[in-house]
């Protein structure tokens, strides 16, 4: 077997492993979000575990992978029974958020190595995702209620994300490192 072909096989094996582990982690966190976190009605809208995971994962990836992660995460969020928008609404927003966050942080060690900056990016990501959801939802004719209530929900969700992200970040970062930093040696 030529060395070139051997390398391709190893790459394929690595990709399969990374993809399946990522999918497992995403599905597990999605289930926790839908089955456990959604049981509680937190004041101010609460936090979205799955959204935070997707954004952390995107920040630690290349823009292309960030967009794909955003697509997959958005699709799962669209399937959720509590989503009021049409199918594809969250997918579109998460593709843009995944690509945008990955674009801003890719090959930028000052962003990735600083937990404070990552938390800031995650909070900004959640805030912008909500705002984009609202704006595109308004264009699609969705009804979101009183402006004051919307403002409180967006502010509340951002504050919850700010409060909870520092605790989740080490876990999600370690999971990411476990999936992507392991090398298969020939």
């Amino acid at each position, binding site marked *: 077997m030529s060395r070139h072909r051997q390398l391709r096989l190893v790459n394929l094996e690595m990709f399969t492993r990374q993809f399946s582990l990522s999918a497992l982690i995403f599905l597990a966190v999605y289930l926790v979000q*839908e089955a456990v976190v959604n049981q509680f009605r937190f004041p101010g809208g609460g936090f979205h575990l799955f959204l935070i995971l997707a954004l952390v994962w995107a920040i630690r990836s290349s823009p292309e992978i960030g967009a794909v992660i955003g697509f997959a995460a958005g699709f799962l969020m669209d399937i959720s029974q509590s989503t009021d928008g049409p199918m594809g609404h969250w997918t579109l927003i998460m593709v843009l958020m995944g690509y945008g966050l990955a674009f801003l942080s890719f090959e930028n060690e000052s962003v990735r190595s600083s937990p404070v900056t990552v938390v800031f990016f995650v909070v900004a990501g959640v805030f912008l995702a909500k705002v984009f959801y609202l704006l595109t939802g308004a264009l699609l004719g969705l009804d979101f209620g*009183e402006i004051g209530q919307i403002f409180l929900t967006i502010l509340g969700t951002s504050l919850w994300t700010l409060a909870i992200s520092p605790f989740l970040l080490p876990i999600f970062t370690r999971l990411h490192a476990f999936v992507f930093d392991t090398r298969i040696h020939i």
Partner: protein
Amino acid sequence: MRYGGDNRGRLLLIILIVTSLFLITLDLRGVAVLDGIRHGGQSALAPFQRAGSVLSTPVKNFFTDVTNLGQTRNQIADLRNENSALKELLINRKSADAQLDQLKSILDLAGKAGYKIMSAKVISQGSSQSFSQTVTIDVGSSSGIKKNMTLISGAGIAGVVKEVYADSALVMLASDPAFRIGVRIAGSQQIGILSGQGARHATLQLLDNQTTIKVGDILLARGSAGNKPFVPGVPVGSVISVDNSAGAIAQSAAVKFYANLSALGVVAVVVGAPATDPRDALIPPKPIPTPIPTVTIYVTPSPTPTS
């Protein structure tokens, strides 16, 4: 160095955006495949939500106890005197009693009006990812639940069934911003449209500019054609403030729902409407004020001052 991207990356991004837009278009056009994906997803999630509901109940009870600490202090003091086994029994009993009370009040309400109901438990409270106010209940199409059926709690209207799955159903709460219901004021029979506002209060818009409304007025559901989505006569809420703006075409008012929509446990879906409109039969009784005992003290001055 800032990442500049390459043509392959840009092409991928464009493909993903176009796919998302394609999905949105298909869904807005009502393509059945996408509904099937959502229904399949929900059917797969329902058992996990049920398990999550069971697992999170002690935590929810704990937080409820903490928030109501002032009210339950005496009860906690009594419980301290009992042994651990009895404590556990009591907590379980408390939870069951609360559900029983809710169920009793629902049966009272449904019995008075002649509604045929299917009782259900709330198994999920919706999510923070959207601005909608929804809950998931543990009965679905296998129990005869259909889309657009009215959901009631013991106090009055709670929402309307939005989506039905095999063993669960998604309910839009009355507080949802997209919720609209035709109501009439008990007694005067004036009619209006009540809209959810994403909060505990809703807004009532009267349809006739010649009629007036006042604080304390009771609102009942007018009922829909074919009793879907709303059966007639269900108590909705009471007026807490009236907007008398000079420029408004008709009066509007803020309304407080009778049902506590943030603490729904046991609810019921109205599966059969009564043969006749119950009219004002379901108006909730006015709370009886607790009499405050008064003590009168007579003081008679002594005839000779004491030194």
